[in-house]
């Protein structure tokens, strides 16, 4: 990989604050994050609850409840700030939600079809779409009847995550951000999810794996690990940093800790 290409994701001193319903901007949640993720790599972002992991995931995808108050976030050299949410998806970004929304009355097949059409900018012929979906359903261990249900409506936790994986595999995003995709999954489901992420890995693509636990990193081995604490990256390192966090917890990384 030539380093002359801009990185997939480049965060420099990124600061983010929440925006309340009345438009007022709250206290900064992310307090200056810098990170460079190159194509062909997987980064893990670890942190305990409340450290700002979901905030980072959300702001990358353009959630209206968060505002960039300083620094920058660049995707393939382009500043993401101000780019509409659906345009980010069309440029190859994908966020796997920690809590995917239910869309009552919206069929899975219809949603996926419209999504693929939106991202590709052209309708997908049924002849192409159906076998593609079938292939992924089989790999994910999802019954065909899934396609006639309503999106995430009454889905179990495991089904929701499988739905997210199905969607991700169909869209083949350039940069996938996975927010706690491993939480609440049993070992079998975890393996299915990890397998999906590994299937997506390629020299052109990258993944940001946001997680609380090290467990999934046994199946998706990261190139770099960052530890987020109270809105700041307090430590970056190789895969073994994750194991260290697993055995020692997060406390020793806290500011001022010995």
């Amino acid at each position, binding site marked *: 990989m030539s380093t002359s290409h801009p990185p997939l994701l480049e965060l420099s001193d990124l600061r983010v604050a929440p925006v309340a319903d009345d438009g007022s901007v709250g206290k900064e949640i992310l307090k200056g994050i810098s990170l460079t993720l190159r194509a062909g790599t997987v980064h893990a972002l670890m942190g305990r609850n409340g450290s700002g992991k979901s905030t980072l995931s959300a702001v990358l995808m353009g959630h*209206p409840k968060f505002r960039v108050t300083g620094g920058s976030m660049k995707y393939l050299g382009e500043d993401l700030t101000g780019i509409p949410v659906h345009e980010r998806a069309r440029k190859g970004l994908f966020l796997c939600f920690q809590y995917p929304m239910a869309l009552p009355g919206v069929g899975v097949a219809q949603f996926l079809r419209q*999504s693929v059409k*939106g991202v590709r900018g052209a309708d997908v012929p049924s002849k192409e779409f159906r076998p593609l979906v079938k292939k992924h359903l089989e790999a994910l261990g999802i019954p065909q009847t899934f396609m006639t249900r*309503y999106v995430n409506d009454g889905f179990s936790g495991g089904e929701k995550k499988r739905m997210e994986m199905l969607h991700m595999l169909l869209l083949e995003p350039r940069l996938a951000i996975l927010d706690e995709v491993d939480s609440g999954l049993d070992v079998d489901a975890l393996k299915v999810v990890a397998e999906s992420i590994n299937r997506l890995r390629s020299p052109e693509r990258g993944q940001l794996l946001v997680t609380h636990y090290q467990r999934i990193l046994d199946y998706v081995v990261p190139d770099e690990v960052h530890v987020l604490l109270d809105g700041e990256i307090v430590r970056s390192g190789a895969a073994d940093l994750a194991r260290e966090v697993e055995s020692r917890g997060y406390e020793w990384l806290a500011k001022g800790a010995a």
Partner: protein
Amino acid sequence: MSVSPLSPLVSASLARASGDPDWLAAARAAGLERYAKGGLPSRAEHLWRYTDPVRLVPGSAPSDPETRFGDLPPDFADGTFERASAYAIARDGVLLRAAVDPLIAHLGFLVEDLRAAAASRRALVEPRLFALRDTCDGAGGRFDDLAAALFTGGTFVHVPRGVTLDRPVRIAHRVGGGFAASRSLVVAEAQCTATVVIDLSSAAETDAGTLHETIEIHVGRGAELRVVFVQRLGDRATHAPVVRSRVERDGVLDTVTVALGGGLVKSLQTVELAEPGARANALGIVFADGRRHLDHHTFLDHAAPSTSSDLDYRAAVAGRSRSSFTGRLRIPAAGARSSAHQSNRNLVLADTARADAIPELEILTNDVSCSHAVATSPIDEEQLHFAMTRGLSPADARKLIVLGFFEPALEKIPPGMLADGVREVLERKLGAAS
């Protein structure tokens, strides 16, 4: 309040009656007399809280129906019975054509002109026609009377005892720019199973006609009847439907009401659960945009013990439109051990649009299982965001969510029958509204 001159209505009623059997002519005269004597209903009545009845008063007698029907709805396969067991085509309240699939004609079910049936099948028609006028306290009776006096025609559907129709009966009704009054009668005899789909449209999108129609529905013992009403009138039309039904022991009435058009709509739907075990499921969806005003009123009367009802009405309002939904539910002491569930949800798509939800519960016994829910809100921002993160434009995401909101009713429209047409109309209107 001035009621517009009656004399043209009187002569029109007399002219209609001249072709009718004596008993029907007498009923028309009685209807006209009640209408004239009663004057207009008071706006203090709950039924008229949101719509001034003056706006529904015809200024002239019903126009003579045009004989030319115009183009058939594109999804209406005229003369073929692949999807329908029978069809009827009406213009301005007058039946132009009706036919039953010859392959199942031996079942003896009837789809024909109501006035012709009143003459030729008196024993079937007379006991039922106008029989429900006083059910549910005679709500809406005034305009019911007017339609009795003036109706130019309508459809008579009769499904004999024990007959199962595996394909729907399809009725297409087109109205033009004048005043039309129609009346239909649907009789599902004991133990039969049938579906009737009634599609109402304007001949031209700009037609500003007024349609008064009354539909009476009788569900016999153990019968299962589904009636789907699809109203896709032009945005300048006025529509005043009164749908009255009565369900006997262990009968089931499923109604699906889809109201997409009309500049002014005042709809009343009453159901009398008259005998133990009777059940009614009522689904309704309403879409309003522009400056349209849609007012839907339901009245479910659990007149017998161990009856059940389930009602779910949903409206989405855009532009400067207004929708109101009043759900009246009555369980008198005689309705013990009944269960009744009502839900009214409204999606407000613009700050300038308004949706009102008024539950009216009158429950006079404790021995019931009852629930009701009312909610009015904008589109869920998180749902919108979720759909957009998957590449849908803001407009497409909105459409998707609104169509999903309506889906429980849309999925009840028989396959291959109007469902796609309804989705298309909705998508077009939603596209224009966003």
